């Protein structure tokens, strides 16, 4: 297992280098630059700006410098200088030595902020939204799937599966505006746009106050984002549970006189959830990129808005940083799912 994880982590590094290379190449292959304006800047100012951000270096040098700043951890005795060029996402003092890692560089368009500043302020909000949506998906999806399977071919089954097909068929840009119109505008139960959580956060993203002030903003976006995934979970749970309750060991459990409730909870459910775990990886990926859409629909100040504006502004470090960060999320999510899968199903071995 340890070997497997090590191999996957090496793979993660390869992925990040390829992703950064493609993104970097694409950004520089297309004409236009971050400081192009409707009215061209005087050449001296342009030269100065490019010098300040090292855009006058040869491309390979810019790329290698970027990789060095982001990937290579540094151990120094110097405390952080606090300048825009010297902002590391991980900066910890161990003994008398500073460990500093992941400098994504300054942002070109908002001059006083670094990419790490944007991550620190906006990423927790996206993470809250993503987590809430995942919870919604599980809380709605699993019971629907279980009910549908236990009452197969009854009205409960049909209703659950109809809800599921509605879920997969209604994208966020449809459900979002409809929810806003019904609950935000007509009934006035919930605020139509915005987000309620404020720093400080626990573990980097969990809000410290879990009151109505948080939920009244979070309910609509997380339902809009999570409903599609809940439908997928419901259908998979149903299929898997249907298969499990036909297994021999379930018949054995019933034969030895175990209560039906215990047969379901102890034997059937536990085993039928294994396949459901496998789709949590791709689902996490869908939710993570889905937060972008949802944030734009509901006007939530997360990473989504920054990514789209950074692209139109040619804010290279923000674009690179965001894409790399999300690639890391995707790879790690899949790795975690694989490990959990092996843990749940002892037949699976990765060596």
């Amino acid at each position, binding site marked *: 297992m340890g070997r497997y994880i090590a191999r996957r982590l090496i793979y993660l590094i390869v992925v990040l280098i390829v992703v950064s290379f493609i993104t970097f190449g694409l950004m520089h292959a297309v*004409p236009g630059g971050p400081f192009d304006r409707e009215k061209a800047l005087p050449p001296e100012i342009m030269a100065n700006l490019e010098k300040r951000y090292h855009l006058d270096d040869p491309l390979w040098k810019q790329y290698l410098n970027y990789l060095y700043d982001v990937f290579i951890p540094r151990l120094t005795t110097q405390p952080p200088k606090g300048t825009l060029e010297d902002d590391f996402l991980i900066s910890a003092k161990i003994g008398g030595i500073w460990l500093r890692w992941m400098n994504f560089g300054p942002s070109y368009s908002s001059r006083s902020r670094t990419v790490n500043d944007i991550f620190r302020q906006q990423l927790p909000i996206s993470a809250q939204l993503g987590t809430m949506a995942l919870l919604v998906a599980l809380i709605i999806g699993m019971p629907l799937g279980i009910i549908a399977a236990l009452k197969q071919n009854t009205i409960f089954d049909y209703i659950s599966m109809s809800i599921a097909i509605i879920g997969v068929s209604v994208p966020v840009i449809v459900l979002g505006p409809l929810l806003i119109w019904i609950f935000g505008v007509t009934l006035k139960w919930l605020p139509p746009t915005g987000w309620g959580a404020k720093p400080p956060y626990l573990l980097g993203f969990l809000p410290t106050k879990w009151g109505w002030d948080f939920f009244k903003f979070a309910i609509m976006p997380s339902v809009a984002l999570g409903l599609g995934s809940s439908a997928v979970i419901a259908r998979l749970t149903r299929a898997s549970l249907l298969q499990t309750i036909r297994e021999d060991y379930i018949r054995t459990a019933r034969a030895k006189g175990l209560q039906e409730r215990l047969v379901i909870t102890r034997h059937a459910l536990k085993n039928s959830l294994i396949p459901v775990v496998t789709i949590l990886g791709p689902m996490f990926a869908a939710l993570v990129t889905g937060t972008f859409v949802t944030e734009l629909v509901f006007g939530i100040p997360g990473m989504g808005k920054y990514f789209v504006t950074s692209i139109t502004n040619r804010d290279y470090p923000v674009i690179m940083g965001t894409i790399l960060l999300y690639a890391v999320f995707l790879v790690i999510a899949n790795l975690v799912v694989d490990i959990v899968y092996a843990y749940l199903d002892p037949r699976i071995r990765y060596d």
Partner: protein
Amino acid sequence: MSQEAMRLKEKTLTGGVPLTQKRENLWVDAFRRLIRNRAAVVGGTIVIILIVMAVFAPQIAPRSYEKQVLNDQNTVPAWLLSLFPTMKPYARISNDYLLGADYVGRDLFSRIVYGARVSLTVAFIGPLISLLIGTIYGSISGYFGGRVDNIMMRIVDVLYAFPGLLFIILLLAFFRSTLTKLEPGTFAYTISQLDARLGGMLFIFVGIGLTAWETMARLTRGQVLSVREKEFIEAARTIGASNLRIMFRHILPNIIGPLVVAETLAIPGYISTEAFLSFIGLGVNPPTPSWGSMISDGAQVIRTYPNQTVFPALALAITMFAFNFLGDGLRDALDPRLRGTQ
């Protein structure tokens, strides 16, 4: 053994079906199962209606989709007031427009009808691109196996970690923003001209194609691997069939079912990707109507004129329903064992 006895034996062996009679074609069989599935029939009917709507949009739409009648901005037909009573105090009534007019006085209904063209084009071209790339890539990888397979699949693994939607946004935004800076005569210029002529759909196809083929490649590879070792492939090889012939004549027909099902189930994803891209202004070029851009326009006035959001949103949702129903039905029809999974 007499001829009569021979025929009798044949009959008992095959359960009454004479051997000489050709077995029912897989697709005919599947189609028969499909039309017995009520949800799939409903879905299929809606898809056909949508196709008719898209093809005959100029005949069906009562007005032009781009003509702006500034006097009729945000007008609402009388019948809508009972559906959206909040509009009563301020709405300007004009029964010329079936579903009302938008913020520059364009007929909403006509725009929705024309919008079907974009969504349906994506619904058909998206699978085509990803099937084409994915099947070829996946079958080469699966058929040759060994080191070729290993390298090709590692490439797919790496691309899989690419945040797809972010990548499409990046591609589109870059190409769109540089259109004006391109020199006439260059390749990039020709491509962007073609894109402009297609109302901006070319880059959407490129974006969807680039990110969607990987799933297909993996699926195809898995299918090819499972068929590759079967006896009939061995037999074909023994009589000297070439690699290409085995691939296209023997393997592909046997794996096409699951591929078609996977693509049909992927169609709603393509449709919603296009709608989202148009929603954030990176999709089709205005004034070409897309349901996504209509929802985005309508969302600006959702407090005052909800009809401008609700109807395009409904159109989009119904279309996605239809394709989902059809995809589910197709899966059940082609492989009844899979019923209810996924």
